[in-house]
């Protein structure tokens, strides 16, 4: 069984009298440690899928099960706790706290868990070194470039070692050089800590970093294939096996 199971997921938005189908019927299984890219153009429903998987939004039908917990059935309070323990986030617009330093931003998820300041700051410093920001520990977000801010964001997502990291267009605001840098760091860390990374993007080039590419068109999975072209050396065999097992294709 996969770490993430998406079963018959459907999401319909109601705008005035009009119904907009964002997701029609999605079935998807992601294995633990897999780097999975959800690829689609804007309006394809890829972000909606990510939001529902992360428990930020409720589906109209179907369910999401992560690590045997039915996320779609949790209350808001339990969802917060669930995210605290199991999920990390990387946002397109970084979403760092403007008043806090890099260390404090990275340590934030640990603070929510009630970890002491000493310990969480130690972890945060470790993470900031890992994203090559050892010389920017006390800088505030406004004192850093976009790429640096996103690296702080990545450190924040990984610091608590959650089971899953969700990244929604993580390089959407970055230039191509910085994009490469940020993607390599993020994918590298996911592999190092053997964490599951769900990457949502519209960019074919970014999709190349993933083990598996799920293409969504108009709320349906159009293609789901193992990515053999990029980083074959790093790719885990397990991921390839699972691709064939996962029956989540919507033909």
């Amino acid at each position: 069984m996969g770490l993430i199971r998406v079963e018959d997921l459907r999401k319909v938005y109601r705008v005035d009298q009009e119904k907009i189908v964002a997701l029609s019927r999605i079935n998807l299984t992601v294995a633990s440690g897999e780097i999975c890219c959800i690829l689609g153009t804007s309006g394809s429903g890829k972000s909606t899928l990510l939001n529902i998987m992360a428990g930020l939004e409720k589906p109209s039908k179907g369910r999401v099960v992560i690590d045997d917990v039915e996320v779609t059935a949790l209350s808001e309070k339990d969802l917060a706790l669930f995210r605290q323990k199991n999920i990390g986030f990387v946002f397109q617009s970084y979403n760092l706290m403007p008043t806090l330093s890099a260390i404090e931003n990275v340590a934030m998820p640990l603070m929510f868990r009630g970890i002491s300041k000493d310990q969480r700051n130690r972890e945060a410093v470790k993470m900031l070194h890992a994203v090559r920001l050892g010389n920017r520990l006390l800088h505030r977000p406004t004192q850093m470039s976009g790429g640096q801010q996103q690296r702080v964001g990545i450190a924040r997502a990984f610091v608590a070692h959650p089971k899953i990291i969700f990244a929604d267009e993580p390089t959407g605001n970055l230039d191509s050089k910085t994009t490469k840098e940020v993607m390599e760091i993020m994918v590298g860390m996911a592999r190092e800590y053997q964490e599951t990374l769900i990457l949502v993007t519209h960019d074919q080039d970014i999709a190349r970093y993933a083990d598996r590419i799920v293409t969504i068109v108009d709320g349906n999975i159009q293609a789901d294939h193992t990515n053999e072209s990029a980083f074959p050396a790093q790719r885990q065999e397990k991921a390839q096996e699972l691709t064939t097992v996962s029956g989540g294709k919507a033909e």
Partner: protein
Amino acid sequence: MKWNDMVAMSLSSLFKRKVRTLLTVAGVVIGTCAIVVMLSFGIGIKKTTDDMMQSMGDLTVIQIENYSPSPDAEPLDDAMLEKIRALPGVQTLTPMFDVDSSAFQIRSGKYVYGGQITGVYMDALSEFGYEMEAGKLPEGTVEEGAILFGKDALYNFYNSKKNNNNMIYPEPDATGKVPDPYVNPMEDKLELVLRKTDDNNKKTVKPIKLKGLGIMAQDWSKNPSPGYSVFMDVKYARSLVDQYNKLNNIKVDKSKKFQYNGAVVKALDIKSVESVQDSIKAFGFQTYSMDSIRESVEQQTRTIQMILGGLGAISLLVAALGITNTMIMSIYERTREIGVMKVLGCVIGNIRAMFLIEAGMIGFIGGVAGLIFSYMLSFLINTLAANGGGVMGLGAGGQISIIPAWLALGALVFSTMVGLVSGFSPANRAVKISALTAIRQE
């Protein structure tokens, strides 16, 4: 999330918006200051009037005045005094029998006492709390001729052999020393002489020996003030008056019953004063006590306090609206941050707590600063009042603004509560923000 982390987060967001925090806190400062200073006035005024009345008279003493008794009223005589003594709440009493000073004279050698003599129940004096400078207050029955002098009454002795004014006064003379009176009743011989109204009266008058029991200290809170009084047993005083009448062939109208000029009643405690006073009034006498004044003054003080407190409450209410407004603004500005925190796994309770702490902190800081200002204002007012010599006729030299510990503590608790209550609805608003909408917001 730990409490200290939540407090730290709240504080950091407060300090981030310094000017706005300062302005909001200022609202609370003014409100707290207004309430505390206003209430401190009330407390100060109450204390000053209490002190004033305490110095004006014993609060448990009721005076009965009988200057112009109505003809059909019961006379204020021994029988009536026994009736009053039997009232519940009465500790003791004494009549006040003023002896006409023209009836007899007290002499000590060449010195003559020219003042008033009052007949009282000598054994009741100790219960009224009279203090002695020399000698002892009598207990139980007293011998005939026993007499008590007030400290200052002794200065009413003068040398009858000299014609010019030779009175001395209890005031420092040129050398700075207060002169002793001519007579010391504890040592010198005292005698009483009945006077004749007619120089042709051939009856011989034998002087009566008196015995000085002691000298009473002055006490302005008593009426009559003991320093200026000369007391003797009321029965003995009456017998002397009878003798005087006989000597001078004065006929007493038998149809008119004997009356004392007045009486003084001491109640067991302040609580019983009112009921005793009412009962005495029911007998048909005019009474007078500090308690009756006190009530009207207290009523007045309460009214002042309520008006002042109300003004303070209004200012604090305005401050509360300020806090709510600031918190709502803060939440609008931080919608995105709140959303991110929620996405990153901050539980709802923590978010609510952080905003409540923030609002409570505004209240608390405002309360502390308000208290400091209040103490300063209070000090200033008291200093001004002391120098100005009792502004508005209040507390000359005394404190007209008093901030007791309970008021200070209460103000802190109250201002913090105002902050918390004002922050309650904004905090709930923050909790309801959808994480998704918040992070989408650009």
